[in-house]
């Protein structure tokens, strides 16, 4: 566990309007680090899922809380933390439901949601969820060897 060489923090109202704003921010951060186009797309989806969850599930209807997003930029990876201070949930119970579409399930029984955490898990290299007070999702994406080498634009420590 080496120290991050840069840390970026953002606080947003937990409203769906801001999910797209955050996507622009993460595109920028990931671009500067030298992530590939495909990896940037993955990051955008995963982070949007985490924030959308905070918007949808963390707070009651009219009580718009905040979401805090932290980006820890390491030489070899980006860690993104998405935290809210709203309702927690039963992770074990939710975990049972996480997965791709089950082809034996009749369409009428399909849930209209439930793919968010599954996608986060599929698109990131490492995911940790802490839900004692509010929910904290910590997601890691590693720079591929060749990405680091290929791109001159990545952020340097020394500058």
């Amino acid at each position: 566990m080496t120290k991050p060489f840069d840390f970026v923090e953002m606080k947003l109202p937990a409203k769906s309007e801001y999910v797209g704003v955050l996507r622009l921010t993460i595109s920028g951060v990931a671009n500067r680090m030298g992530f590939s186009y495909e990896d940037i797309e993955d990051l955008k989806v995963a982070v949007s899922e985490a924030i959308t969850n905070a918007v949808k599930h963390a707070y009651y209807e009219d009580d718009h809380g905040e979401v805090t997003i932290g980006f820890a930029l390491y030489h070899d990876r980006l860690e993104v933390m998405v935290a809210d201070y709203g309702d927690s949930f039963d992770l074990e119970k939710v975990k049972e439901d996480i997965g791709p579409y089950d082809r034996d399930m009749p369409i009428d029984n399909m849930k209209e949601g439930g793919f968010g955490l599954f996608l986060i898990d599929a698109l990131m290299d490492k995911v940790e969820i802490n839900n004692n007070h509010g929910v904290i999702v910590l997601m890691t994406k590693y720079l591929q060897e060749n990405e680091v080498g290929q791109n001159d634009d990545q952020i340097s420590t020394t500058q």
Partner: protein
Amino acid sequence: MNLHIEDYKQNQTTVIKLSGEIDAYTAPELKDKLLGYLNEEGAEVHVDLEKVNYMDSTGLGVFISGLKTANEVNSSFKLINLQENVYRLFNITGLNDVMNIENTVRGDIK
């Protein structure tokens, strides 16, 4: 970050042409439009995703709703011209098994 929705009749088919991004902010309007059309028995809808460069699980949710409505009232819809990164989400989640998806186009780097 916005979603532009254009819809028109083409012979028997209704085309919903989308451009932009499908997320929690833009999905509700799309859902209204799509379900509005699908609630008519026998309706045939084509959702053209050629200019959609971003979608997340909120979009998947809209199309699952569409599927359920179509099943109930006996209408149908098809997704066409998906960009690679949008198609991938249907693939990863296994929803390509139940959705009617036609010809994927290559994702264009922007």
